[in-house]
């Protein structure tokens, strides 16, 4: 068939479907919210807006700090007040300790985590795509997954020295192990109908891998990346508590020796804030890469 000959659409043949198009389009493209009742209209309008949700987030945090302040200033709990912690944060920010500690921890997490997912994604694809690779690699992955990465620290220090290498290695291990399984699961779970659809359109193995398997497993991979980031962050702090001369974990460990509770709080909050920020970055990348997904 030559397409040029059929370039003129036959108006009669498709009159009816054209009408349904707009009818279908309306229902498909503008779904009405299910909980649209008069009773919760006000509540919904606030929660429907991004700014509204953010305002509630901020209010909740402020309320939390106020409650913390209330309990600690009355002396009911032997913990520092928000004000003391704030002052200590300013002191540490001014003398640069806060920044150098955060930078040290961040550098370790980033290098270990990025290295981990950079190795995990290709290995995960290999395991998902080739059954031989799966049979060879899977026992190792499953075995090492049962060992907490922190249990590797003594061995890593003995064999890799006391510099950055053992810490980065342990972080690498924890992010690798969580992302590799997710990637491999993603490949195994690719909808077979999509693979068949590509195959009948003439796609070979490489095209199917590149244009179907990789995008279809992305949502799984991103879940693995998020979990990997969480475990990297947990691992770096623990590693610094055990063996480090810098970093937020090290600072806490030092403060513990001097009963310096405000410093411990500053470090803890910094860890939380940095972890949250990194998670948001991954979430934003995930949202961008998997915007095509039908989410509830």
């Amino acid at each position, binding site marked *: 068939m030559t*397409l040029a000959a059929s370039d003129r659409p036959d108006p009669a043949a498709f009159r*009816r479907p054209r009408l349904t198009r707009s009818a279908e*389009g309306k229902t498909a493209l503008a779904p009405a919210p299910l909980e649209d009742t008069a009773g919760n209209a006000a509540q919904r309008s606030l929660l429907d807006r991004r700014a509204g949700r953010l305002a509630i987030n901020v209010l909740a945090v402020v309320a939390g700090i106020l409650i913390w302040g209330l309990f600690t200033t009355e002396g009911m709990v032997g913990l520092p007040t928000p004000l003391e912690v704030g002052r200590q944060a300013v002191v540490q920010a001014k003398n640069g300790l806060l920044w150098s500690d955060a930078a040290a921890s961040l550098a370790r997490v980033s290098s270990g985590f990025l290295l981990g997912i950079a190795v995990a994604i290709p290995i995960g694809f290999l395991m998902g795509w080739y059954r031989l690779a799966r049979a060879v690699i899977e026992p190792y992955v499953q075995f090492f997954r049962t060992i907490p990465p922190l249990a590797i620290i003594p061995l890593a220090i003995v064999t890799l020295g006391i510099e950055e290498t053992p810490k980065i290695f342990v972080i690498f291990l924890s992010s690798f192990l969580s992302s590799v399984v997710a990637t491999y699961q993603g490949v195994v779970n690719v909808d077979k109908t999509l693979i*068949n659809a*590509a195959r*009948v359109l003439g796609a070979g193995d490489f095209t199917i891998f590149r244009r179907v398997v990789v*995008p279809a497993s992305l949502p799984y991979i991103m879940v693995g990346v998020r979990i990997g980031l969480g475990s990297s962050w947990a691992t770096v702090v623990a590693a610094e508590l055990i063996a480090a001369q810098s970093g937020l974990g090290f600072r806490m460990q030092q403060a513990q020796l001097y009963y310096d509770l405000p410093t411990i709080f500053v470090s803890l909050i910094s860890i939380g804030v940095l972890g949250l920020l990194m998670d948001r970055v991954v979430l934003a990348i995930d949202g961008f890469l998997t915007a*095509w997904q039908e989410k509830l």
Partner: protein
Amino acid sequence: MTAKISFRNVTKTYAVAGQAPFNAIEDFNLDVADGEFVTVVGPSGCGKSTALNVAAGLVRPSSGGITVDGARVEGPGPERGVIFQQYALFPWLTVRQNVEFGLRIAGHRRDERRRIADHFIDLVGLTDFAGALPKTLSGGMKQRCAIARAYAVNPKILLMDEPFGALDALTRVQLQDQLLAMWSRERRTVVFITHDVDEAVYLANRVVVMAARPGRLHRVVDVDLPFPRTEDIRLSAAFAALRNEVWRSVYHPALN
């Protein structure tokens, strides 16, 4: 006219753990002529999807074989387009990118891809949604996109596996008319699987009735209704008679 597709003694045996192997389809023979619209109807388990998947090259027969234009089918190929019940659109691609998928593999240049894709998107009435992701489309629109995608690579044969099975009755009737309009314009050989007797009679030149356990061809009913098929034909006595005949063959194969 010579046969476009020939099923010759096709048997597919599946092994089930702990049970005797069973034949999903047994000694299936069928010739489909060039440009013919054949529907296949039968109860679940009659092997109609297996027969279609063998023709698509997605399932290898245990014995027997299929030829297309005299050449033996050894695997999937773009000259045999397949439309799946579950649409099987790539959810990360827009409507246009989905339709261009096969054209890209075939090595068409960018502007050519665009022209061919837009032509078929227009034919199925999705022009306003060319840039939309599948998740924003209704079931009927998704299936129309899948039909455009299958047509775009210019297949000689279209294999359709209960394509309208998941749609509501109204949308289904509309898509039937649209498919027939497309078929009369672009004459391809169509093998269309369905479990809906009305649909089978309305669309076809011939209806193939299959029986279950083991899946096999029961009988073939010629549909001598004129084209284009219209609502008047759907409501005619001749249609009702054919429909009843097919119905009895499907549900009471021992008597008919």
